[in-house]
């Protein structure tokens, strides 16, 4: 992987640059350290709504102007709000990247937050939430988070609670924007076909003059010890049942996180590589015809979060059966550990997954942006190396440390008959 250069401008903006000349394109990202975990009650969803408002224009780039400019240049652009961050990106042919860099600099401090646009966007965001509500698993996810986190901001969905989406004001949004969109709370990341010295000079010219003061203190409340297993049950119209088993795990920068990632590779497979039909969970749940599908993942988060396994049950099979099969697999892992062959498979899958993702400058830049958010800019670059150092004993140790009843949160989605039969008219 080409070297990463890391700079900090006098105003506090972090700059991460990586030259990658496999294609004549550049991906440019602005990542802000603020997400749904930093939202107090009454303002849930504010980070995501602010992200929407940044597409509503500035004096220099009125609403719609940037859509046009980026599309005309053949680029892609979007933004994501996560639990920990709000990220904006543009990937463009290399000779067209300046427009994106200028626009991101402008909207770091000059977004308009027009009152009329704010109201129009309120209904769009409520529509986004209602679209998600049409999926029964959204209700399960929302209930599970609420059960897992009583105090910490991870307890609500990123989109926010509908009551807050209806009551939040334009001033709430603007205050959130002014407080968190500052150079000292952000990173500019570029990966692609450029010269690093020239790119740094451009960033200094465009962003060096933006003032904003020190990085803001972020609203965050640590989650107290759960003190035992928690369970939630959700009922929604439909015919398909789901079972989700979560365990509390540490933050992504904790030494144990990568060991848990290897554990997950063995239980469920490596994301981004293979189809994982030889994984332990597939064999235990799908091959036995308890489930139509099973998936498991760790989200790399700033604060301790969850390791989740979700099972889509086949007709006639019960959540109890899924739970019994899952707990049996976990007990087997805790008793017998893993083999060297399984470990080697996880290592090769990781190597392959990195090779696939490195074809895209957008994915590489995303990894760097995530590293900044986690507070360790080398997190993505060292990922594979750290994973290769995990031993079978490490996996056994974290299985026994974290996959235990006192850290467990269980969610069940039971389908119920609709009030009236679903019909075609």
């Amino acid at each position, binding site marked *: 992987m080409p070297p990463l250069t890391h700079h900090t401008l006098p105003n506090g903006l972090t700059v991460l640059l990586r030259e990658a000349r496999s294609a004549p394109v550049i991906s440019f990202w602005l990542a802000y350290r603020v997400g749904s975990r930093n939202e107090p009650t009454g303002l849930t969803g504010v980070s995501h709504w602010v992200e929407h408002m940044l597409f509503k224009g500035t004096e220099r780039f009125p609403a719609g102007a940037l859509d046009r400019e980026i599309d005309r240049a053949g680029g892609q652009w979007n933004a994501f709000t996560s639990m920990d961050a709000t990220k904006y990106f543009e990937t463009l042919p290399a000779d067209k990247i300046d427009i994106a860099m200028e626009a991101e600099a402008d909207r770091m401090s000059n977004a308009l937050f027009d009152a009329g646009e704010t109201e129009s966007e309120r209904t769009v965001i409520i529509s986004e939430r209602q679209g998600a509500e049409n999926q029964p698993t959204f209700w399960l996810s929302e209930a599970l988070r609420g059960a897992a986190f009583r105090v910490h901001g991870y307890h609500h969905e990123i989109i926010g609670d509908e009551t807050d989406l209806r009551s939040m004001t334009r001033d709430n949004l603007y205050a959130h924007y002014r407080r968190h969109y500052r150079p000292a709370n952000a990173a500019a990341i570029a990966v692609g076909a450029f010269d690093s010295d020239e790119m740094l000079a451009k960033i200094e010219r465009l962003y060096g003059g933006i003032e904003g003061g020190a990085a803001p203190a972020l609203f965050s409340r640590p989650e107290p010890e759960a003190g035992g297993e928690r369970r939630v049950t959700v009922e929604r119209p439909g015919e398909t049942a789901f079972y989700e088993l979560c365990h509390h795990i540490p933050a992504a920068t904790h030494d144990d996180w990568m060991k848990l990632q290897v554990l997950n590779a063995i239980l469920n497979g490596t994301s981004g590589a293979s189809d994982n039909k030889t994984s332990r969970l597939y064999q235990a749940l799908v091959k036995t015809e308890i489930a139509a599908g099973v998936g498991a993942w760790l989200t790399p988060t700033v604060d301790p979060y969850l390791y989740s396994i979700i099972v889509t049950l086949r007709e006639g099979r019960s959540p109890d059966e899924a739970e019994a099969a899952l707990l049996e697999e976990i007990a087997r892992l805790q008793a017998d550990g893993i083999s060297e062959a399984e470990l080697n498979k996880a290592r090769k899958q990781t190597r392959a997954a990195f090779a696939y993702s490195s074809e895209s400058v957008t994915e590489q830049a995303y990894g760097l942006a995530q590293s900044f958010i986690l507070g360790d800019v080398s997190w993505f670059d060292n990922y594979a190396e750290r994973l290769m150092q995990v031993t079978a004993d490490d996996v056994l140790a974290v299985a026994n440390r974290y996959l235990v009843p006192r850290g467990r949160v269980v969610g069940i989605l039971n389908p119920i008959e609709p009030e*009236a039969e679903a019909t075609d008219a």
Partner: protein
Amino acid sequence: MTTSQASIPNSGNIQRAELGNGVVVLVYENPAVQSVNVMGSLQAGSIYESPEKSGMASLAAGALMTGTTGRDFDAIHGALEDVGADLGFRGHVHKLGFSGKALAEDLSLLLDVAKDALCHPVFPAEHVDRLRGERLTWLQYSAFDTRYRAAKAMREALYPESHPYYYGTYGDADSVAAISAADLRRFHAAHVGPRGMILVIVGAVKASDALNLAAAAFGDWRREDQPATPQANVPAEEPTDLRPTVSLPGKTQSDICMGVIGPARAASDYLAAQLANSVLGVFGMMGRIGKSVREEKGLAYYAYSQLGGGHGPDPWTVSAGVNPDNVELAIASIMEEIERLTTETVKDEDLADNQSYFTGRMPLRLESNEGIASHIHSMESFALGLDYLAIYADMVYSLGKEDLLRAARRYLKPERMVVAVAGPEPDEA
């Protein structure tokens, strides 16, 4: 910096070979990466199915990887997963498609597994039963999905039951339940063969090595009685139910799916229709529809248009997810934009914007092995010629406003547009 002509896949840098049995192999070297991508298709889509066994081609495609004469289920998947490789088959209406990826050092293995799956599947009954159960669960779940149900209702109103496009490639619960392992074996024996097969290989491999590996894998495959591919014609009948609705109690949002029959990929006005579609519901924030329905009226999170453009008369659709109270307003707003597109030429700047968009996005689309393979496969599959990408910009810029208007008028006929809605009961909203 721009993509140079030399780096665009073209007849000079794509190695093409036709094996004696009809398999066409195309290889493009991409030394900038560490991996390799394979992509391809065969003439074994759902167009060969009977309505009673709808879903057969897709189930057969999925079951190719469940056991062969040389490898059982675990051996197939173990071989791939041990090296972080992936391979999948998917049934479409006209084609059986496949795609896979591996580190470059494992291309030989990837092709060997692909050959095994395509040429020597055994469709073990226990695995077919399991796969069928997984499909039935998916169909069950989808039956309560407003987006899926709106699209299905639109399709079933737009095409008559005698047309292959009436049916979803996954079939329905009754038809899938009726498909046996023996049915899949018969389907494979009757339809899956080398004639018409396309295999594209892109990545960190020497073209000559890749061609040799492909020939070793598929060169000896013989099937003398492979049937000709049926055509899917534009239906003779007009749709009779233009406003199908699906009631799904308990949902909070309604999905709208509007559709007319659009151009096939081979149609002379396909590119003009694509540009018109981009103006309508793609460019910027989902085109004119996005501007009206989302940006100005705040009615929806998504509202966009899409042109199918495959081997037959695929639909030209508009989709939106809206609050149930706003369904009629959203439909009226979309119809206004369709009316505008079919009665007025687009503005000069609209045409220029979209021409720039179509040509400017090429470097991003050719960034990855998969993107390159997809374009090469399309050039071969739709007989566009291997220099299509090299002349693409000229073709886009040769089109004028009248071309877009003609294409829009030809296909987007409001009086034939099916408007399907799936959502909660009106009094639930």
